[in-house]
């Protein structure tokens, strides 16, 4: 269109030298730059600035109400000798690994189940989303009651059935408390995994399963040879997000245990909050938060490679 118009003018009169301004006005990169400015501004203001400030604070001895001075790596040296910090690192890794694996397995299973022809499919699909919709703090409070040492409905039911004779101390015992918060996290995280994988499953053309049926595949072989490989790209995305959310989880723990008993359920996020906000050592809290960054970057790298377009996804999609 433009070429055509230009061709006509040049036929009439010799074209005038285009000025730098003219070139700038038609330069797509220049225009693109201006379109990007608002988004970039937002990102810098709301993401990069707080992140940078946090990292900077981790190198200072700032406290609430007192601007700090630069102290280099002193906060990190402190943390390196702090057994509670290392406990929180261990807890975070345990929490993330166990919860993510179970969320993935159960989520995938649910997604496959929901992809079948079930009666009341729409209602069941909606029901699966409930844990996701309920505000975390609310569900955490509910769990708190369910697992309360005196009023726990589980203990009560088991006692009524005569299986146990005294209450289970769900949140008072270290390992019980860990299992309990992991359970709560799984309960809350499964809908996201299940619904996203369900969306992925629905992109797999049913005729592939028909072709496989005729080729002689049984259900398991179809899952192994067709569903799983076709789902890998979406699994990579979902699990990255799931790992990131789990690793940085704060609300559930804070509402249910506040890191107790005796720091047994402290995650890096909750410990950071406790040191920085509750105790007022902003610099130290910032250092704990900053220490999460390498772990998160590692998780992102894994997914980055998982997300690389596979060979079969390349090429023209003229179907």
């Amino acid at each position, binding site marked *: 269109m433009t070429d055509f118009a230009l061709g006509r003018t040049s036929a009439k009169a010799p074209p005038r030298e285009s000025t730098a301004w003219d070139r700038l006005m038609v330069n797509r990169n220049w225009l693109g730059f201006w379109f990007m400015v608002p988004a970039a501004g937002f990102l810098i203001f709301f993401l990069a600035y707080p992140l940078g400030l946090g990292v900077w604070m981790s190198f200072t001895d700032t406290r609430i109400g007192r601007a700090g001075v630069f102290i280099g790596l002193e906060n990190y040296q402190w943390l390196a000798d702090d057994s509670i910090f290392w406990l929180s690192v261990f807890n975070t890794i345990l929490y993330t690994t166990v919860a993510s694996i179970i969320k993935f397995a159960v989520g995938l299973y649910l997604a496959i189940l929901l992809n079948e022809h079930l009666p009341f499919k729409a209602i069941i699909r909606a029901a699966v989303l409930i844990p996701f919709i309920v505000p975390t703090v609310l569900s955490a409070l509910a769990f708190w009651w369910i697992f309360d040492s005196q009023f726990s409905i589980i203990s009560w039911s088991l006692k009524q059935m005569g299986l146990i004779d005294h209450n289970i101390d769900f949140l008072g015992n270290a390992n019980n408390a860990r299992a309990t918060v992991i359970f709560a996290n799984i309960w809350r995280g499964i809908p996201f995994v299940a619904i996203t994988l369900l969306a992925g499953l629905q992109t797999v053309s049913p005729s592939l399963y*028909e*072709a*496989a049926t*005729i*080729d002689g595949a049984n259900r398991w*072989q179809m899952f192994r040879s067709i569903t799983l490989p*076709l789902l890998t790209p979406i699994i990579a995305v979902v699990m990255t997000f799931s790992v990131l959310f789990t690793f940085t989880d704060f609300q559930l723990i804070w509402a249910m245990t506040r890191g107790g008993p005796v720091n047994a359920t402290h995650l890096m996020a909750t410990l950071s909050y406790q040191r920085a906000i509750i105790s007022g050592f902003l610099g130290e809290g910032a250092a704990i938060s900053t220490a999460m960054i390498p772990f998160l970057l590692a998780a992102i790298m894994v997914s980055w490679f998982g997300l690389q377009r596979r060979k*079969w996804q390349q090429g023209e999609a*003229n179907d």
Partner: protein
Amino acid sequence: MASVAIRDVRKAFGATHVIHGVNITINDGEFVVLVGPSGCGKSTLLRMIAGLENISGGEIRIGDRVVNNVPPKERDIAMVFQNYALYPHMTVAANMGFSLKLRKASKDEIDSRVNRAAEILGLQPLLGRYPRQLSGGQRQRVAMGRAIVRDPQVFLFDEPLSNLDAKLRVQMRTEIKELHQRLKTTTVYVTHDQIEAMTMADKIVVMHDGLVEQIGAPLELYDKPDNLFVAGFIGSPAMNFLKGNVKANGKLEFVGPSNTRLPLGKAPASSDGRPAVYGVRPEHFTIADDGAEAEIQVVEPTGSEIQVVAKLGGEDVIAVFRERHQFKPGEKIRLKPNPSLVHLFDAATGKRLTA
């Protein structure tokens, strides 16, 4: 290879009945085409043969075995889908060898069978590619390769050419036909394109609304359609139909719209005076002085022939001539159907009247 017998087969999806008792016998090695308008139940019938749909009533046999309750993989059939249904994450070779792999065939056997099929279809240079890296025609061929590798009793094709462009379609049509002549595997081929049906089939089954209208060799259907539906469906451009009455006393002729007199070769005596439909194919008109008068509306030369739309007794008819007449719109011509090639149908039942 095997014969296929379809006996009084019915299909209902819930309360919707889509196939109402179909009987077809397919002989060993035969190429049978199921043809009919969209929604008539061709795919459903094919999928019942494949075992992808349950059979609501009746019986399907492959060879001597009733397969109503036999799972697809034990029916020894191979199917080519309309969208090819190639596994996107497997190479061409893996796609073709998948069924053998599932049967736990040895790697050598898989390789040799895949290579043989690839050779037949000219796919060797593409064996390492993924489906996305293939053109439509190549994908089509891979889908056929996947079927050939299994060396099944019966090939089932569901509109395999409908995603290809016109030229490639003609080419693949020939290729499939050649393949059948070479392998001689019993084939059931579904299409809604009557040209495909005519050119490829040993035997055509014309379906309409879940019923078989007529079964026969292509030229049999063309020369002696059993009813108005088949007459109108087979042949392109379609047969012209004119409503009127048979006049049998005196000179046998057909009184068409606006009292147009049209010649009749023969007609059953019982048809005298009965309302009937007169059918004449566009290619069976000639220009003759004793023809019926018609006014030319549109002239469409295609090079090899001239197609003319004309008003005959107030009705549009289409005539095709191989001679290069110099027609002009508005011109009056005299069209004469070849009396030995016209068809007569009962107006009420649509059934063929001429023997």
